[in-house]
């Protein structure tokens, strides 16, 4: 995507052999998130208006800053999102991330991550569209739930 302007609404969808409850836990519980989210531990009480933050496993560095907009377990989590892992991204305004979870039958759940409101955050848009961005994170989440292991 290097030569293109990254999209201001990005959609990442994946089928996972797991229940919606297991997918919800993988999104919200720090013991799961650190296995696929670039090692980050997500902290939140998932009440609307509460902080939604991601830290390095030892708590020394903050990676993600945001606020819970909507939480409807195990169907939907929507938060504001600011990437604070690098100073030039941290300067950009908040965008929005939605995790949509739908059962599709046969023990398979579809997870769709929609990252939008990126119009004023072009560097963040480019970063999350990169090979280390959402594609990596959702593929890793699938791998953690299906095999117990994240990607390398």
């Amino acid at each position, binding site marked *: 995507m290097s030569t*293109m302007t990254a*999209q201001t*609404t*990005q*959609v*990442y*969808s*994946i*089928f996972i*052999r797991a229940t919606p409850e297991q997918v919800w836990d993988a999104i919200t519980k720090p013991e799961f998130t650190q296995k696929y989210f670039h090692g980050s531990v997500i902290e939140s009480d998932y009440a609307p208006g509460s902080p939604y933050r991601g830290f390095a496993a030892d708590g020394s560095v903050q990676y993600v800053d945001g606020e819970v907009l909507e939480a409807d377990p195990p169907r939907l989590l929507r938060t504001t999102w600011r990437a604070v892992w690098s100073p030039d991204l941290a300067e950009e305004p908040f965008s929005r991330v939605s995790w949509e979870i739908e059962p599709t039958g046969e023990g*398979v759940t579809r997870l*769709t991550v*929609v990252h939008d409101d990126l119009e004023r955050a072009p560097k963040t848009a480019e970063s999350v569209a990169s*090979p280390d961005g959402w*594609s*990596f994170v*959702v*593929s890793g989440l699938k791998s953690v739930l299906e095999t117990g292991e994240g*990607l390398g």
Partner: protein
Amino acid sequence: MDDDRVFKALADPTRRHLLDRLFERDGRTLTELESDLEMTRFGVMKHLRVLEDAGLVVSRRNGREKLHFLNPVPIRLIHDRWIDKYTERRVSALADLKTELEETA
């Protein structure tokens, strides 16, 4: 999840063209997507259906419009499973050589 569907969906030039259009700009309507194709609306819909079934395209409602988004994740999974494994330095050196020769030709 279903590699066969992804490979089948990719094995058609019209469908690859539709993916390229969405890569340029995402979130398009059927009307926008059919504009540069010499094909009936129904034909384009059928191709989009195959792409959606393979998970390569995700459609979302926005008011009265249905917007189509490129979903890069199935290609990522194919890449991790089928391409990464076979792409050693020698292969990429050959690919570089090909690019170089074609550019200078």
